[in-house]
């Protein structure tokens, strides 16, 4: 197992783990924005820069996706690394000047304000981190939204800027958005949930008993579609006493718990933007790539 000496502190990690994994193990905090354990890590935001000591020269690399394959020496707190992170944050603040979560993160790494003017047009402080599109494609398996354009015109949108056809109104995109750009809006009168700013709406299912709206209709349909009920197992369960039924159920639940933990719902990171508990639970959890 290779050793990562991070800010002079050695930690052993599995081969193929990232520098960020090593930092987490060592208890050293590195700021991130586009990183999320449940999706692939393309290291888009460039905030998690650290300095790799290669002996004769030093190299700035992104911690969230740099694979550790042999013993390496990393500095998180060097001036070059800290300076790089501050520089990137200043550019992000220029891009998303109104975002409170971004400003809070900026202050945490020592950036009070940005010296740059706002020169890029943005949709409501979007920093183009790609977490929403990644969650929709890899976790939900829908790819209802995606990136469009290139460079200055790059934006997250539903195809043709129409309400997304594939969207099931699960709200996972809002749950992972680190800067609060994506918001869930409830329209009581129509009984619909809206994913803003994608203009997509889905009907909410009303509880047959009390009328409370908890999940969207397409989410429920998707759950029913994906859930496979094993009638044979069900029959076996009916042959057990209550105590033994509980034991059987508990062993099944460990899988779900692992999934939920991965998504950050059990004592890990809380979803930042939805202000606490999210109103809908994301369905699924298996990484899937729509199409290929």
């Amino acid at each position, binding site marked *: 197992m290779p050793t990562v000496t991070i800010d002079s502190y050695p930690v052993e990690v599995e081969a193929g783990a990232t520098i960020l994994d090593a930092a987490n193990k060592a208890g050293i905090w590195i700021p991130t924005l586009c990183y999320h354990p449940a999706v692939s890590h393309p290291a888009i935001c460039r905030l998690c820069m650290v300095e790799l000591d290669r002996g004769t020269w030093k190299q700035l690399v992104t911690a969230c996706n740099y694979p550790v394959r042999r013993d390496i020496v990393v500095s998180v707190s060097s001036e070059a690394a800290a300076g790089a992170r501050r520089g990137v944050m200043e550019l992000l603040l220029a891009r998303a000047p109104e975002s409170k979560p971004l400003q809070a993160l900026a202050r945490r790494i020592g950036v009070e304000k940005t010296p740059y003017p706002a020169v890029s047009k943005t949709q409501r402080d979007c920093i183009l981190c790609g977490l929403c*599109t990644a969650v929709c*494609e890899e976790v939900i398996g*829908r*790819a*209802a*939204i*995606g*990136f*469009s*354009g*290139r460079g200055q*015109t790059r934006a997250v*949108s*539903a*195809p*043709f800027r129409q309400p*997304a*056809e*594939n969207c099931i109104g699960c709200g996972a995109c809002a749950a992972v958005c680190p800067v609060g750009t994506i918001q869930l809006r409830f329209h009581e009168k129509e009984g619909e949930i809206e994913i803003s700013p994608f203009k997509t709406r889905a009907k909410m299912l009303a509880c047959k008993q009390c009328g409370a709206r908890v999940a969207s209709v397409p989410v429920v349909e998707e759950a029913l579609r994906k859930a496979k009920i094993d009638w044979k197992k069900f029959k076996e369960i009916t042959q057990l006493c209550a105590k033994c039924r509980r034991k059987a159920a508990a062993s099944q639940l460990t899988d779900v718990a692992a999934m939920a933990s991965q998504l950050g719902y059990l004592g890990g990171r809380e979803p930042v933007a939805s202000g606490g508990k999210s109103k809908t639970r994301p369905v699924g959890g298996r990484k899937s790539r*729509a*199409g*290929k």
Partner: protein
Amino acid sequence: MAKDTVAKEELIDDIVRRYDADVGMLIPMMQDLQAECGYLQVDQLRRLAGRLDLPLSRLYAVATFYASFRLSPKGRHEVTLCVGTVCHLKGAGAISEMIQKEFQVEAGGTTPDGLFSFQPVNCVGACALAPVMIVDGKYYDGMGPDSVRKILRGLPMEEGAAERKARK
């Protein structure tokens, strides 16, 4: 109407078959589609996405990422202006400005009367002939604002090569 839809579906099937439904050939497929229809229509892209089992968002991402794709109909003629370094040094910038101002067309767009679509590109590899303009596939070398103005004003309003192809 139904016949038209069938023709459109056959076109998609044809294109998919041409490339063995190889997803890696998506860009050439979309280029062939655009060559047939003049531009990329939503319905056609939806059909293509379905045939290839890809989400529509992927095709939209590709259509908006690459400069050669257009999502709205193009003009009767296609005008391409090279704005590579050498052409720029020889005044392509001024030519581009003149075209945009006098013909009221933006880069990548079409004139209000639909006469031509204007696309600046970054280097067509004919640097010795700078500045270079291509109209409906025909190359013009050593261009200046006056010579370009003359050529564009002389473009016939009747069907040009671009439209003829789209009609086929």
